[in-house]
């Protein structure tokens, strides 16, 4: 025994040294191997010369390592190999902060909410001169919105190229209030315009059908309020239902551009009072604020939840499970529901082009000119068709002048999107300026692969039946049209982040903590206590310094209006 243990230990020690030395030598080798070609490429060589660029971006589990069809094509055409650095672990801010602290950057970054910090640190190049000289396509894509990329009133530079599609048209609505098709059918497709209509439909169905066919109790309305989606399922609907657009956690006066936290509006108090009422009469799932996301999804997938207030992408997985089981009656139709007839749903209140997440070239980039030319190629008509549709003859065919995706690929795309993305590369290289859905290229085809006919084709028979009953072809037809309201001059206020170290940002975080506690409390309170709790909520917000934050935000909105109207 003694000898054995000693043997084992000396073996372990010996191994250790072998490993340590082996690792350190192999590392120096590989280090040299990767750096040499990069440094030689920095010289002015013809563009087809291979170049590897480092690119820090959000995580993409379907990244194909340039091995997909499109990846190989791009590599061949431009000589550029992209080596992404995916930050893992929630936020990429940490990684970007480390880059700033060590003053070492990759060639390209998507700095997101850390843009401020990187601009501050002088890490990002001004792209304006590069674009003017080398990138006609990028400039063409942004068109009249080119100046919206400008950094600030005092700094004319363009630091990031927004990746949001330009002139994007929404063909369908994923938001609103949802009711099961079977509920609507049983009630004879009544008008669903106000929360009272919504409530009545649920109530009527629940009284007749307290349980499902297999004996489980039906649930009137369930909210996804136990996790961060409380914002989507509980608080954002408050402004949609009371005639305000989504401006983050704020309500912006469209004339004066003064901002207040949206909970401070009296109209929204009434919306939450309605939810309180729903709880009081037993239509609200008592577990609405104490369920995990998978419990919420499981309830929906069991077909027992008659009504939802959510976004389609949030309950989509559960709905897919229902479809897989053939329970189409328990899938959902979506409606723009408001507190009463005087309000209109502002989901599609126009914003103009909204520059959001963007790509930037850093000061450490080996060859900025070549990079901007590369991005310009991706933004060209040829490039955009390549990134969205793929390679002609392989991923799409042109039939009678129209681009068509072959049936087998289309099936792969719908049923196994991960494999589809990984093998074709479609969707993996959208890292430059591009058009949104609904924009047509010179050949008369759409740039993207999402268009109205396709959305209608994806509807189930139940969807079509319900839509026919309301005289609509898509759910979006039920909403006020895109031009029903004058365009917001500041875009959408959720694209305005507080400076992360400012006092307003701390106050904002505090108001969020208060909201997450008080809103559920108010909704679950006895109706006679509702006002007491809500008043306390408003007082807590005051105490946290909401007035100061509102003033700061108003100023930011006004600055944006000034910047963009120049």
């Amino acid at each position: 025994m003694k000898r054995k243990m000693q043997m084992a230990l000396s073996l372990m020690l010996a191994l250790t040294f072998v490993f340590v030395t082996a690792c350190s030598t192999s590392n120096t080798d590989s280090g040299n191997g990767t750096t040499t070609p990069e440094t030689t490429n920095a010289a002015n060589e013809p563009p087809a010369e291979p170049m590897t660029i480092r690119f820090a971006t959000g995580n993409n589990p379907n990244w194909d390592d340039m091995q997909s069809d499109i990846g190989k094509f791009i590599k061949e055409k431009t000589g550029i190999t992209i080596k992404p650095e995916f930050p893992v672990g929630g936020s990429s801010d940490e990684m970007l902060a480390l880059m700033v602290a060590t003053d070492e950057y990759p060639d390209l970054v998507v700095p997101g909410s850390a843009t401020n910090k990187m601009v501050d640190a002088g890490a990002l190049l001004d792209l304006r001169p590069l674009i003017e000289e080398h990138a006609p396509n990028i400039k063409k894509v942004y068109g009249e919105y080119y100046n919206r990329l400008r950094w600030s009133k005092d700094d004319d530079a363009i630091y990031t190229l927004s990746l949001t599609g330009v002139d994007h048209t929404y063909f369908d609505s994923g938001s609103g209030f949802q009711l099961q098709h079977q509920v609507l059918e049983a009630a004879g497709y009544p008008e669903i315009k106000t929360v009272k209509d919504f409530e009545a439909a649920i109530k009527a169905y629940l009284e007749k059908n307290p349980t499902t066919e297999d004996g489980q109790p039906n649930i009137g309305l369930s909210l996804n309020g136990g996790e961060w989606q409380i914002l989507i399922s509980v608080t954002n609907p408050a402004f949609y239902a009371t005639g305000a657009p989504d401006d983050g956690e704020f309500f912006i006066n469209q004339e004066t551009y003064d901002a207040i936290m949206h909970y401070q509006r009296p109209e929204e108090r009434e919306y939450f009072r309605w939810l309180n009422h729903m709880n009081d009469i037993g239509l609200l799932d008592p577990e609405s604020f104490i369920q995990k996301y998978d419990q919420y999804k499981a309830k929906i997938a069991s077909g027992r939840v008659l009504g939802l207030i959510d976004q389609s992408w949030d309950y989509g997985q559960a709905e897919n499970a229902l479809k897989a089981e053939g329970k189409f009656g328990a899938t959902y139709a979506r409606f723009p529901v408001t507190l009463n007839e005087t309000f209109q749903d502002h989901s599609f209140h126009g914003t103009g082009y909204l520059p959001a997440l963007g790509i930037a070239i850093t000061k450490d980039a080996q060859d900025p000119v070549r990079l901007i030319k590369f991005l310009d190629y991706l933004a060209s008509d040829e490039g955009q068709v390549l990134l969205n549709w793929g390679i002609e003859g392989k991923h799409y065919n042109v039939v009678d002048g129209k681009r068509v995706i072959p049936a087998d690929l289309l099936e792969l795309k719908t049923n196994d999107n991960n494999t589809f993305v990984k093998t074709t590369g479609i969707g993996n290289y959208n890292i430059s300026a591009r058009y949104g859905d609904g924009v047509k290229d010179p050949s008369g085809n759409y740039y993207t692969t999402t268009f109205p006919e396709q959305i209608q084709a994806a509807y189930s028979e139940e969807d079509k039946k319900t839509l026919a009953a309301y005289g609509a072809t898509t759910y979006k037809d039920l909403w006020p049209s895109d031009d029903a309201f004058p365009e917001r001059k500041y875009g959408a206020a959720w694209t305005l982040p507080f400076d992360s170290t400012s006092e307003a940002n701390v106050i904002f975080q505090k108001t969020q903590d208060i909201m997450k506690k008080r809103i559920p409390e108010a909704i679950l309170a006895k109706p006679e206590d509702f006002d007491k709790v809500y008043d306390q909520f408003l007082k807590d917000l005051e105490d946290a310094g909401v007035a100061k934050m509102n003033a700061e935000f108003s100023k930011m909105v006004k600055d944006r209006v000034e910047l963009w109207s120049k």
Partner: protein
Amino acid sequence: MKPLTEMTPEEGPTLKRNRFWFKAFQQRYLYMMSLPFVIWIFIFSYVPVWGWVTAFQNYKPKDTIFDQKWVGFSNFIELFQDERFYIVLRNTLAMSTMGLLVGFTVPVIFALLLNEMKGQFFKRSVQTISYLPHFVSWVVVSGLVYKMLSTDGGAVNQLLMWLNIIDQPIQFMAKGNLFWGIVTVSDLWKEMGWNSIIFLAAMAGIDPELYEASTVDGAGRFRKMWHITLPGIRTTFMVLFILSIGHLISIGFEKQFLLGNPLVSDYSEVFDLYALKYGIQMSRYSYGTAIGIFNSVVSILLVFIANGIYKRVTKETVI
């Protein structure tokens, strides 16, 4: 060697120094075995402490440490003025104390019982199984806890209803006063087996002759457990216990965060989550560092007080 009393005043210091070096030479192997690690820990643990000065600055990563704006104690003042800070401190201490008490006694009892088992196969199987939940993430465990305690067909409510103890399902997860208990029990469920391993190892090191001798003395099973096994693991237990007291304030936030929900947020939010939310996540590095310093100071005080008490009582020390 000359006895000390015979030293002349001039001779004293030199002799002392010589004796020190003589002894150091005698202990050269011990120095060779420890000094490399002293250097290592100095580099990897003490050198980065320069970062603490940022707590007195308004640190921005783009500049070096010398070009920052100095703000004195304002970060600490802000921390101590925040009401939320006191709530999270209370929650942290409540949950960590409960966790410490339950998380030490139960694994010891478990190890003790395991040690008493005779069938080797069964004993090993139970021991292996009991540590499996350690590898299951908190996301999964919290999901299971929620499902079990649900009012919508949760196992616990159904059992209580079936036993006629209650006639209405209880919303366990909505009750703030139950939250600390739920966290403690869930943690026990997940970590009991894992935490008992170290005690099993300590029991394995007890001299079997002690048991043999007491059998001869006619001692029963319980007397052996009480007089041999438990004292045998005392040192290990005390070391772990006192070192853990130092961690009372930094217990992570994962389990509390995942088990929490909006209705119990006043009971679920802990110090480490507060530090994350109001520090790093908002890129307030200086504030985050100030929180870290507070945390370290409290931890070190706690561990030294605990060690001091232990020393006074037993004349032993763990540090």
